[in-house]
C-alpha cells in the first residue's frame, strides 16, 4: 500500500509540474465571465444556466484531464524507458498500475475540488447580489448542497474514464488510446439507446452486437444527475448508491484487465 501511495504521489507531482492544474485558472475565469455575462442577458434564468454550465464544465474539463494524462501514464514510462529502473525496485507490476491510477484519481480530485470551490464562489456571488424577490423564482437555492451529489457522481464517472484510459494505455499508443477513450465516453452516455436499437431491429446479429456492447460499455448515464439537481428534483440515495457501486465494480474490472495485460508485457 505504501508503495502504491508513493507511485501515486509521484504521478500527482508530475501532473502538477506538467501544469495540468493550471487549466483551472482558465476554468474559473471562464465560469465567472460567463456568469457575469449571462446575468445581464437572461433575467431570471441565470442561476440555472450557471449551474448547468458549471457542472457540465467540470465534467468536460475532468474528462480532458482523465484522458490526456491517463493515456500517457503507462505508455510514456515504457516509451521513455523510465520503467526499467522503476520496475527493478521492490514494486510489482500490479502496484505500479494501481499507483498510477491512484495518482491520476488524486490529480482529478484536487482539480475537481478547486473547480467546485470556484463554482460555489460564483454561486455565492450570485446569491449575494440577487434581490430576495427574484430568488423566490429559483427552483433550488443557489448554494444547494445537492449539487455536491452531482459533483460526486461526476467524479465517479471520471474515475471510470480514467480506468478506461489507463487500460488502453497499457497496450496502445496515446493517440489510439485517446480516440478509444473518447469513443467509450460518448458511447457510454448513449448506452441506453443501444437497448432501444436492439428492440427496433430484427437482425439477430445486430441484436447480439448491441447487447454485447450494452453490457460491455460503461453506462455513464447512470452517473448523470446534473439536470435533476439543477431543477431541484430530488436525487434518491439508492440511485446514488447503485451508481457508485456500479462504478466501483466497473473500475475493479478495468483495473484487473489492465494489470493482467501489463503483467504479461515484455519491455523490449
Amino acid at each position, binding site marked *: 500500500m*505504501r*508503495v502504491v501511495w*508513493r507511485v501515486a504521489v*509521484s504521478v500527482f*507531482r*508530475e501532473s502538477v*509540474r*506538467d501544469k495540468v492544474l493550471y487549466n483551472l485558472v482558465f476554468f474559473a475565469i471562464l465560469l465567472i465571465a460567463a456568469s457575469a455575462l449571462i446575468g445581464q442577458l437572461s433575467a431570471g434564468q441565470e442561476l440555472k444556466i450557471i449551474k448547468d454550465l458549471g457542472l457540465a464544465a467540470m465534467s468536460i474539463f475532468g474528462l480532458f484531464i482523465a484522458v490526456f494524462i491517463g493515456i500517457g501514464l503507462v505508455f510514456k514510462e515504457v516509451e*521513455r*524507458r*523510465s*520503467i*526499467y*529502473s522503476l*520496475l*527493478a*525496485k*521492490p*514494486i*510489482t507490476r500490479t502496484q505500479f498500475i494501481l499507483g498510477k491510477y491512484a495518482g491520476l484519481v488524486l490529480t482529478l480530485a484536487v482539480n475537481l475540488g478547486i473547480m467546485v470551490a470556484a463554482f460555489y464562489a460564483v454561486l455565492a456571488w450570485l446569491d449575494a447580489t440577487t434581490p430576495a424577490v427574484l430568488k423566490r423564482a429559483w427552483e433550488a437555492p443557489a448554494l444547494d448542497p445537492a449539487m455536491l451529489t452531482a459533483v460526486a457522481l461526476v467524479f465517479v464517472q471520471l474515475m471510470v474514464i480514467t480506468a478506461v484510459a489507463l487500460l488502453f494505455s497499457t497496450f496502445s499508443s496515446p493517440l489510439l488510446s485517446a480516440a478509444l477513450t473518447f469513443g467509450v465516453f460518448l458511447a457510454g452516455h448513449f448506452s441506453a439507446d443501444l437497448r432501444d436499437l436492439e428492440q427496433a431491429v430484427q437482425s439477430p446479429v445486430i441484436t447480439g452486437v448491441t447487447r454485447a456492447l450494452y453490457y460491455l460499455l460503461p453506462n455513464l448515464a447512470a452517473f448523470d444527475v446534473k439536470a435533476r439537481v439543477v431543477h431541484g428534483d430530488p436525487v434518491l440515495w439508492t440511485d446514488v448508491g447503485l451508481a457508485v457501486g456500479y462504478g466501483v465494480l466497473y473500475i475493479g474490472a478495468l483495473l484487473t484487465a489492465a494489470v493482467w495485460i501489463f503483467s*504479461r508485457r*515484455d*519491455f*523490449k
Partner: protein
Amino acid sequence: MQTAIETFDLTKDYRVGFWRSHPYRALDQLTLSVSPGEVFGFLGPNGAGKTTTLKLLMQLVHPTSGHATILGRPAGEVAVKRRIGFLPENPYFYDHLTAEELLVYFAGLFGEHGAAARARVARLLDLVGIGAERRLQLRKYSKGMVQRVGLAQALVNDPEVIFLDEPMSGLDPLGRRDVRTLVLSLRDEGRTVFFSSHILADAEALCSRVAVLAKGRLVASGRLDEMLAFRVQGREIVAEGVSDQALARLRPRARRAQPLGPGRYAFEFDEAVAPEAIVGEVVAAGARLVSLNPVRESLEDFFVKQVARAEGAPRAV
C-alpha cells in the same frame, strides 16, 4: 556457497514481422553462474543479447524457457529486488524531477524516508560527482550526468548485487575513470557487480571473470587470467645498439621487427622460438637486451576471434 546470479538455459524469443509471425531468438540457452563478490563482465558486440539477459534478470521481459535466480531466489521477486541495484542502458528518468527528488522517491520505494533517506541520497550524489546541480530538474542534465544519476539510483538501497548495463556509455574519460573507481570500491566492499559492456578495456581493468556472448549464444566464459594466460602467442624482445648486420640476421627469424629509434628495435618472435636462443643471438650480435616479454593474446584478440567464430554460425531459430 550460494551463488549471486545463476541462469539456467535462459532463452528468449521475440516475435517479429508484421503479423509477429517470425520468432527471433535474442538469447539462446544461456547458462552461467556468478559468485558473490565477483566483478563479472558480460561482453559481446551490439545485438549479442546482453541487454536481453539483463532484462530477463530484472523480469522486464519474460523468458521463453529457462529461468534465473539472484541470491538464490527467483529473479523478479520483490524480496530479491530489495537487495539488488540496476542501471539500465542509456537510462532515462522522470525529467520533471531533480536528481535529489528522484533518489528520494526511489529510496521511498525501499521504505526509506525522511532525514535518513535525504542524507543517504546526498552521500550517493556526492559519490557519483553530482554537485549543486542535484537541485536542477533532470531535463537540464547532460547525458553523462544522467548516467551518473543512474549509478546513484542503482545504489540507493545499498545493494548486494549490482547490475550495470553499459555503465560507461555517455561518459567522458574522467567519468569513465570515476565509474571504474566506483566499481572497484564496490568490489572491495564485497558486493557483486555484473556489468555488460562492449568496451573491452573496461572489462580487462575491472573483471575477475567474463562471459562472451555473440548472436545470443554464450561463446566463452571463465576467469580472465585463465582465458588469456595460456594463449602466449610469442615473445617480444626490445634491443638497442642493433647494427645493420645484426638486423639482417634477426629480421628473417622475427615475425615483426619494428624500429623504435636509432639502433633500437622491437622484435616479435613466434612462440616456438626458444627465448634463450633469441637472447643469445641478440647478445652475440653485439646488441644490448632491453626487455623480453611474452606476447599474450589480449582480451580484444580473444573477443574478436570468439565473436567471429560465432558470427559465422547461424543464429538459432
